[in-house]
Every structure is written in structure tokens, then in C-alpha cells.
């Protein structure tokens, strides 16, 4: 079994993040709070409740080196939380948004963070020493709709975004005085802040969950039309591939290695994608074995409606072609909307990762004993 542990933290989890040494987890139980838990003798103990936001917290990220938590919320603000003694002390970051903040990510060097928002903008925030203040710089007028996900390139400059206008874009976030000149490499070498490097126009419906591969050579994102997109050579002449899924759409992805991607979403079961020696991506399998229980076959509401459509709920869709037992037989019982890599500090990827979803569970997965996947790791 690829899943090592599962714990029910709440009724529903919006997002989660791990502390640098992965002993603590911060999660939002679908309200305006962030709860921090620690595993103590096989029991999860709630250490802190971060209460400062007025509305649902939509994004949490915990920086690996500086041990700071950044949160983003529908109340249009972000807070950077620093641990001072026993307490987490918030610093307000005024994002200057007129719509909800939807996602947040620390940059690899942790000197900047990016916030995607419903205001069709991305905020790049950095710390100004002289004012003791986090400043937000906006990338405006580039997105035609809400920004659903942001991902930092390992070079700390390039930022990929996905949006509900269906497009994936890559921007330069070079900020004078924050980024050193020599850190600029490749196609971004002479680009200014907010300059769009590329716009990928592959999806015709909402795009979610963008990530860079560990080297930054490949970009993966998902569409709400049950497709996943892989883009190599991000620059003037990108190479794009798409893989159509048999089942429900994905919400988020991570790269486990250059050639292995895990996607999670409405099918409640992580999907494994891999690139062969020629670099052709394809769907490998579900991570969780399907159990052919004789219990209720219809996991998702979608297929229940389907039964009604044909008036014979147990027949027709019940054969090998379409097997809907996995959502009930699997570990997650509802849409998975967040996946986080559990790498050792210093190594950007690991064989372990955690998922959380609308069923309120956090599940930790390990690919160590998955023999058929080891060639891609």
C-alpha cells in the first residue's frame, strides 16, 4: 500500500503545509483559522490556532529554512507568521486586492512569496528591511480571470500561474534590490518585473495546479476538462503534450522526479503519470488499488446522478469498463484538493508526499515500495 498514514483532522480541509522538519502540520479546516498540529506519541495534538483572518483561508505555505508561515485568505489579505517564543506573531501584508486571495507560495530562496487572486492579478511580496514591512508588487492586466495556482521556478525568478481563463503563463518576478543579477539565467536573463515570458493556450476550460519539475525544465498543469498538460523547454519554442484522462478532472499535481508526476483531484485517488525514455508522458495507474467490494459502487455524486439518468443504478455502468468503487474503497472519500511534497530539507523532491481533501483527511504516501514506479524515480 502506497499510503502510510491517514488522519481525520476536520470535516473538510482547504489546504495544508508542513513544518521544515515535518513534525508539525498547518491546515485550514474550511474556516478563517489555521490549526497547527504536532504528532506526539502517535496522537495528533493541536498546538496553536492562528486566528487573524476574517474569512476562509485559501492558502498556507511554511518556509523550509526560515520557519515562517504565510497565509492567504478570501478576506483579501495575507499574514506572515513568525514564531516568537511560544506564540506565532502575525504581520499583515496589504496585498492591495479587491478580490479574494486564492493561493500562496514562498519562493525557493524564501525572500519573496507570490499570491494568486480572484482580482485577475498576482502579487509578488518581498520584505523591506528599512520599513520593517512586506511590500506587495502586482502583476496586473495579464490574466483574464482568477489566478488559481502559482509555482516558483527553482531559479527564484520565474513564476508560473494558472487561471480560470484556461491559460498557463510564466512571468519574470525580478525585483531590484531583492534578486541578485547573477541569479538570472536562461530566457529570463534580461526581463523586467512582470514581463510575460510565455502564455500557454492549451486548455479551453479552467486551469489548476501548476508545478515545475525539480530542475525547472518541465511544467505540468491540469485543466478542468479532464486533461493534464506537460510543457518542456519553457521559452520561445515550448514543447507541449497533453494527456486526456478517463475519469474526473484533477485539481493539483506534484513532480516526484523529473519523470514522475502525481495528480490528485475529483477522483479521490492519486493518479501516477510518467515520461518514458523519449519523454512521452502517459497515465500509468492509480496509486491506490481498487477494491472490488460489493458495497455501494457509486462513490461520487456524479455517478449517482448517472444511475438516475439510466434508471438502473446497478447495471450498465457496473462492469469493468467503469469502476466507481475507488472513491469508497480508497483512502480519501472526497475530492483531493491539495498535495504537498515531503522532501528532506535541501532536496526539492522526495518519494513521500501528503494529500488533503474535502473529506477532512490528511494522507501520507510513500512510493518506496512501489516497485513498478521505481524506474521513474
Amino acid at each position, binding site marked *: 500500500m502506497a499510503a502510510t498514514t491517514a488522519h481525520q483532522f476536520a470535516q473538510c480541509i482547504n489546504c495544508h503545509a508542513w513544518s521544515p522538519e515535518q513534525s508539525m502540520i498547518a491546515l485550514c479546516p474550511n474556516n478563517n483559522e489555521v490549526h497547527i498540529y504536532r504528532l506526539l506519541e502517535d496522537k495528533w495534538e493541536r498546538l496553536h490556532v492562528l486566528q487573524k483572518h476574517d474569512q476562509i483561508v485559501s492558502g498556507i505555505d511554511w518556509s523550509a529554512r526560515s520557519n515562517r508561515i504565510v497565509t492567504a485568505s478570501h478576506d483579501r489579505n495575507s499574514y506572515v507568521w513568525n514564531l516568537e517564543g511560544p506564540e506565532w506573531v502575525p504581520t499583515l501584508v496589504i496585498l492591495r486586492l479587491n478580490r479574494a486571495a486564492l493561493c500562496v507560495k514562498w519562493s525557493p530562496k524564501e525572500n519573496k512569496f507570490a499570491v494568486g487572486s480572484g482580482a485577475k492579478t498576482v502579487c509578488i511580496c518581498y520584505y523591506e528591511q528599512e520599513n520593517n514591512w512586506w511590500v506587495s508588487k502586482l502583476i496586473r492586466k495579464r490574466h483574464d480571470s482568477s489566478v488559481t495556482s502559482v509555482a516558483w521556478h527553482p531559479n527564484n525568478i520565474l513564476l508560473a500561474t494558472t487561471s480560470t481563463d484556461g491559460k498557463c503563463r510564466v512571468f519574470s518576478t525580478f525585483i531590484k534590490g531583492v534578486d541578485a543579477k547573477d541569479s538570472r539565467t536562461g530566457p529570463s536573463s534580461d526581463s523586467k518585473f512582470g514581463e510575460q515570458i510565455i502564455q500557454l493556450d492549451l486548455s479551453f476550460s479552467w486551469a489548476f495546479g501548476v508545478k515545475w519539475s525539480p530542475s525547472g525544465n518541465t511544467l505540468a498543469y491540469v485543466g478542468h476538462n479532464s486533461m493534464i498538460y506537460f510543457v518542456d523547454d519553457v521559452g520561445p519554442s515550448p514543447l507541449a503534450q497533453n494527456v486526456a484522462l*478517463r475519469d474526473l478532472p484533477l485539481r493539483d499535481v506534484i513532480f516526484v522526479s523529473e519523470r514522475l508526476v502525481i495528480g490528485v483531484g475529483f477522483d479521490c485517488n492519486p493518479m501516477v503519470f510518467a515520461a518514458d525514455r523519449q519523454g512521452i508522458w502517459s497515465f500509468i495507474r492509480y496509486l491506490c488499488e481498487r477494491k472490488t467490494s460489493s458495497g455501494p459502487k457509486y462513490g461520487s455524486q456524479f455517478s449517482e446522478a448517472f444511475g438516475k439518468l439510466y434508471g438502473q443504478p446497478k447495471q450498465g455502468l457496473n462492469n469493468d469498463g467503469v469502476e466507481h468503487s475507488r472513491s469508497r474503497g480508497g483512502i480519501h472519500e472526497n475530492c483531493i484538493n491539495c498535495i504537498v511534497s515531503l522532501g528532506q530539507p535541501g532536496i526539492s523532491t522526495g518519494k513521500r508526499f501528503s494529500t488533503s481533501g474535502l473529506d477532512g483527511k490528511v494522507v501520507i504516501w510513500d512510493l518506496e515500495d512501489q516497485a513498478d514506479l521505481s524506474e521513474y524515480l
Partner: protein
Amino acid sequence: MAGAEAFVEADNAEAIITRIEHKSRKIESLLKQSKPVEALKTALEGSPPNTRDERCKSANWIVVHRALMAIKDVEGMFSSLDPEYYDILMKYLYRGLSTGDRPTCDQCLRIHEKLTERAGLGCILRSLADTVNTV
């Protein structure tokens, strides 16, 4: 400028209509030879999802509808219909269902059930989520 674009679009539409008329004749002859699956493939090929011209879309729907209604053996159809046709077929099935015409809906639902078994829910999602390339 806008006028020129509209002209190109209209010109393009005429070409598409001519192509569909040609397709229609080919489908009739295939149906006479009792090759309904070949007829359906011909109808689905070169569908004009990119154009915004409703006339083209309707014209192509008429030929697809003609081929669709000629399918008697749904299981048999899928044994010779390649997966690359699944997504576009699903779009036309939903167009068929939207007509509300009883025999058309019956036929579309029958094919829909078998198509979903084969192509999965992802195929439905792709046809519903795509608001740009409509048929």
C-alpha cells in the same frame, strides 16, 4: 478591418458548407452500402468546431444526425470506432439530447451509455467543459 475579417469568415463558411455538402453525399452512398460506422466516421471527421458560424455547425449536425440515426448495432459500432472519435462524438450526443426530439434522444442516450463505459467520465467532462470548440 473588422469588415475584412467578417468577409474572410463568410468566405470560409461557404467553403465549409461546400465541404459538408460533399460529405453528405458520401454519407448517403456509404449508408446505401450499409456501412453505417464508416458513414458516422465521415460525418465526424472535419467537424467545424472552430468556426463561430452557426450555419456551418447546424449543417454538420444534420449530417452527423443522419449517420447517428442509421446506427442499429451500438456495440458493433464501438468495435470499429477508434478512440480518437470519442470526444467529438460525445459533443454531438449532447447536441442531440438538446434537441428534445424523442427518437433522437433515445438513440443518443443509448449510444451515450455505451460511450461512457468505453471513454469514461473524462470524455463527458471534456465535452461539457469546452465552451470554445462547440459543435
